[in-house]
């Protein structure tokens, strides 16, 4: 069953010029249809202004479509009565780590959501302990958020969402303001939650290296959904991605460049190991005689299988 489903979703807003006359209509999201299954790890890609954040805000009823429908756990976000249920089911983590933490003590901030939901006191504490443990932030429970690193603050924000017992977490560029270590820390934390708790994760980002772990990738441009597929499928289209102002991992780019030079490398290479194996295959296949290959006791197919085994995250 799908946890999130968009049916012909459109979102337009009026923008008033400086003189206050003639409002201009901006189509932030256009005719988006998508279905996200429970328990998946989904990535939404797109450059700044492609409509990905606007789409994300529809997923927990912070915005309501001006055309079409958004279903969250079978609830229509147009229904005013269900807005709090929707937000409990689909939690959201934002970009700026400072501007989403309400309390001056970590554990109290994590309790903020359950307090709003009217959860009894004992249960709140259970949830706070549990969420802090799952995000690895239990040691910092009495700290002030101001003393934490960016990655730690985002983990507190994730714990705050988890304490509401959501089915789905929507992360709107949670790593855009972090350094590489912080980014790694946050992505690791949500991947763990996705695996161990079965929480659906929807990660909005423009960092390609965060996308390779996703089950499914959506690419947005000018408010439309323009590509959809597994990371490998998406990264097989290096040139199209560049046209969409997106980056691809450097190893994918290198493989692509060599392929253009006539080397027989498969499209959509995502890891260094895969790449190295592909190059070795070419060397052994091209320059080395068959006897040599036999002497090495390997054949190309075996090696390919080995490459897959080395990269379990991709399969």
């Amino acid at each position, binding site marked *: 069953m799908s946890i999130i489903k968009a049916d012909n979703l459109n979102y337009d807003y009026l923008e008033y010029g400086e003189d206050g006359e003639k409002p201009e209509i901006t189509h932030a999201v256009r005719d988006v249809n998508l279905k996200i299954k429970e328990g998946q790890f989904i990535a939404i890609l797109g450059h700044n202004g492609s409509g990905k954040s606007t789409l994300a805000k529809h997923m927990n009823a912070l915005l309501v479509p001006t055309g079409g429908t958004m279903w969250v756990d079978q609830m229509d976000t147009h229904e005013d009565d269900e807005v709090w249920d929707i937000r409990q089911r689909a939690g959201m983590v934002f970009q700026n780590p400072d501007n989403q933490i309400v309390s001056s003590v970590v554990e109290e901030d994590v309790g903020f959501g359950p307090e709003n939901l009217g959860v009894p006191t004992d249960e709140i504490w259970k949830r706070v302990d549990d969420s802090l443990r799952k995000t690895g932030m239990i040691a910092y429970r009495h700290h002030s958020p101001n003393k934490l690193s960016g990655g730690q603050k985002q983990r507190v924000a994730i714990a705050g969402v988890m304490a509401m017992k959501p089915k789905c977490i929507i992360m709107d560029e949670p790593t855009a303001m972090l350094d590489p270590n912080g980014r790694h820390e946050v992505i690791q934390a949500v991947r763990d939650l996705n695996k161990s708790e079965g929480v659906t994760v929807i990660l909005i980002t423009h960092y390609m290296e965060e996308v390779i772990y996703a089950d499914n990738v959506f690419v947005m441009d000018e408010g439309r959904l323009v590509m959809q597929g597994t990371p490998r499928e998406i990264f097989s289209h290096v040139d199209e991605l560049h046209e969409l*102002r997106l980056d691809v991992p450097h190893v994918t780019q290198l493989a692509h460049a060599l392929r253009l030079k*006539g080397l027989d490398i498969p499209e959509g290479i995502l890891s260094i190991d895969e790449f190295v194996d592909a190059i070795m295959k070419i060397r052994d296949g091209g320059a080395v005689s068959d006897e040599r290959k036999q002497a090495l006791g390997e054949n190309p197919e075996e090696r390919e299988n080995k490459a897959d085994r080395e990269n379990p995250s991709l399969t």
Partner: protein
Amino acid sequence: MSIRLDHVTYTYSPGTAYEMHALKDVSLELPDGHFIGIIGHTGSGKSTLIQHLNGLMRPTSGHVYFNDEDIWGEKYDRRNLRFHVGLVFQYPEYQLFETDVITDVCFGPKNQGLSEEDRMKRAEEALRQVGVDESLFRKSPFELSGGQKRRVAIAGVLAMNPDVLVLDEPTAGLDPMGRDEILGTVAGLQKQRGITVVLVSHSMEDVAEYVDQLIVMNHGEKAFDAPPREVFSHYKELEKMGLAAPQMTYIMHALKERGLDVDVHATTIEEAEESILHALGRK
């Protein structure tokens, strides 16, 4: 117009329980006209370091020299120094305050005491060089997109005609295209104006492509100071510092280990491509 740091140490709250060395005995030279990268993880002292370059922070011990003059010497005009060493902070768009773009860019030149006419000339030139379209000059800076705001903020420092331009993570928070555009612009400026550029970054990939000298900071100390390819050959030590070499370095080392004779110093995609084709005998 070289800057030289001589055994600079900076200590927060010296003599108290909160004492912390942000910089420990750092000596370095930033020669004229070079493109220099400073890299290090958060808290490695790189932000403290760059604030010493234009006299916003005073070393607890040691000396900072600009053109062989001690900037903390008696009667040294540090305000004037800041016009020569332009510093662009992280997220510089948050310092914009004027009613329109061009007036904001004029703020620096105005502080320099330039005439109205000269200020405008400087501001227009700077805005054009960072790629801000003329149609935006009279708009409010708050109406622009994130990337445009950042360009305007960089122009605000550039308009002072500094000899040295220091940028603290100028690409933070931008999307890949925005990042490439800003870095391209900065590299262009460096060539066009022939100025020294100091780029603080987290990304080895960015640095690998542009700089000719790379300084690596770790726990307030200078860990490396050499051309990038030399620094990246220490990729195992970089990892211990919580940093990583560019992906290319790992690929080339992996290929070499498997017996392919490639150049392990290749750090950009183009270099790697060339070297692999060569090693495979395809060129």
